[in-house]
């Protein structure tokens, strides 16, 4: 068991023949991931990486039975690609693309909400994220596979490279991962920390969760509330951006929408108050989890 993806997940890659799409699809295939098709408009009928290429996601889904889409389409067209995957019936959509206009994501969210009101169950991961990996089973993203190993720790993060850092530390201390999810660094994204924590809580293969947040927004505060009210599994939290200057990215009226949340201090305080173990030093994430799981005998 794992959350989101497992060895049977059939994946179609949008932006398959581009340089990023090609490189990473190849890496995913090498990991054993079932990449069954690719989509590049205008190149339908061709073969790329030994996989069929289709003009539309609809064609790819109909021909191969894929229900997961992995998106490497450039930012100006990525929002449309997400909506295409929704319309074609994909239930899991992972968008790697960085730099999508925020307003485009607001429109995508509306589109997804409409589909959900119609009874569909949809999971969008990203954008601006490294993707999802279920170690030993399925890699759908751009993370370096070799740092991962199967095990009981769930990892969820807003940042790509910070996730690698944390995973590397876990693996080096013998702690494997159930699933590692990058939810992305954009202001509006598909899945929140809370969405993923709920999946980890329900997943029998996950025993503890590492949550890596950063300054801005209130997703970590909401996750802390969820943890306190609904979770039984331990969560270890790290928040990046303590040394970051204030005000360069946050507008004033924006700060008010969040109700005073969004700073490093407020997030740490929210995590602590909820009972999440806070890791202050980025280099000690793995060690902290390891210590908590193997308490020294008295």
């Amino acid at each position: 068991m794992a959350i989101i993806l497992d060895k049977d997940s059939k994946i179609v890659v949008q932006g398959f023949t581009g340089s990023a799409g090609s490189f990473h699809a190849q890496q995913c295939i090498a990991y054993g991931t079932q990449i069954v098709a690719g989509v590049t408009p205008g190149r339908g009928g061709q073969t790329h990486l030994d996989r069929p290429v289709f003009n539309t996601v609809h064609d790819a889904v109909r021909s191969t039975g894929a229900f997961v889409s992995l998106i490497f389409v450039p930012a100006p067209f990525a929002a449309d690609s997400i909506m295409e995957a929704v319309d074609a019936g994909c239930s899991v959509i992972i968008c790697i693309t960085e730099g999508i206009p925020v307003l485009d994501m607001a429109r995508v969210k509306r589109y997804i909400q409409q589909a959900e009101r119609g009874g569909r169950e949809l999971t969008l991961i990203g954008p601006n994220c490294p993707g999802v990996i279920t170690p030993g089973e399925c890699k759908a993203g751009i993370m370096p596979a070799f740092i991962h190993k199967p095990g009981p720790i769930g990892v969820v993060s807003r940042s790509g490279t910070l996730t690698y850092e944390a995973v590397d530390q876990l693996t080096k201390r013998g702690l494997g991962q159930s699933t590692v999810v990058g939810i992305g660094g954009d202001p509006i994204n598909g899945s929140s920390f809370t969405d993923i924590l709920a999946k980890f809580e329900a997943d029998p293969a996950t025993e503890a969760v590492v949550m890596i947040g950063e300054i801005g927004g209130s997703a970590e505060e909401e996750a802390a509330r969820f943890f306190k009210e609904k979770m039984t599994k331990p969560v270890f939290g790290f928040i990046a951006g303590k040394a970051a200057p204030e005000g360069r990215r946050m507008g004033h009226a924006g700060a008010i929408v969040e109700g005073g949340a969004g700073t490093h201090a407020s997030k740490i305080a929210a995590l602590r108050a909820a009972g999440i173990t806070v890791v202050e030093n980025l280099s000690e994430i793995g060690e902290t989890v390891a210590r908590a799981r193997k308490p020294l005998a008295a």
Partner: protein
Amino acid sequence: MKLLEHEAKAILKERGVAVPPNGGVIAKTAQLSAALKRAGKAPWVLKAQVLAGGRGKAGGIKLAKTPKEAAVLAKAMIGMDLITHQTHGQAIKVKELLIEGGVKIERELYFSVVMDRKAAAPAIIASAQGGMEIETLASEKPEAIIRMTVDPVVGLRDFAARRLAFALNVPNDRVGEFAKTAKALVKAFIDLDASMLEINPLILTPKGVMALDAKVITDDNALFRQPVLAKMKDHEATALENEAKAADISYVGLDGSIGCMVNGAGLAMGTMDTIALAGGSPANFLDVGGTANEERVTKALKIILKDKKVKAVLINIFGGIVKCDMIAAGVVGALKKIKLKVPLVVRLQGTNVEAGKEILRKSGIPVIQADELWDAAKKAVEAAK
């Protein structure tokens, strides 16, 4: 990117939002009399064009009743160092003044549109208590703030604009004008791909509704489809930040002594935090990006080293998309072109890490290598002493 008041007002005026009589922007006192003439009859308002809020209390906005008074004020204001509660104790030099004709204010409202992350949609924040700092209002009288989410596909509907007008106690004779203005402001927010648009105050004049101030922050991700905004100058960015931006490198200058080059925004922030925790202080935030090549690494290193405060450089790369050997080759290539006078600590992990370390070892460049981030940070802090 943040727009200056006069830039934001020009854009809003084109979109049907009323603004005060505009006399133009002046950088020299010699330009004043022409500006006063353009702005119409006395009184006039002289407004410092800086990005920080709180200008009024800090002396950055002045009213002049005569041309002589305006001249005295303009002379004092151009070149003044403005410290507001938003400048974090630092002074901003006033280079330009916006000259406007005075208008009759009947009431001041607060009106802004922001991107509400949680609702995943634009949201209007409004209050009948305009002119006040919205943060102050939020903590002292949160019940005086009205919030309304807007459909990003449709914009503000007529009925919603009217509801807002009545909620703000706009008199009946100006409800129509208010609704028109609110719709224009929301449309501007959407059309400009703004992340924040704030009018404080939005005023009721005896005859209508007018934006007395305007603050706009745009979404840099959308500049590819905003040709007008893309051509505008980013007033907040330093020369180095602009240079970095042109090279597609995300860089923010800071006050410390350890220059950082990192891949990924989160890890870049985490590296800064680790340096601080190890007793040092970062000189910058720098995300070299997910598709960095030798040229970008060279450019990034050049930018870091142009900052004279830098006493040591820490390169922290966790290879995912970026391959460590490529970064190592980039560093070696860069150091053939740049003479390095400060210690360089390099920490590589992830994709092709061994090949990357090997390239650095064989290069003969005096690089301090580290495997773990904590070790790298401590070495950088030590080297910067």
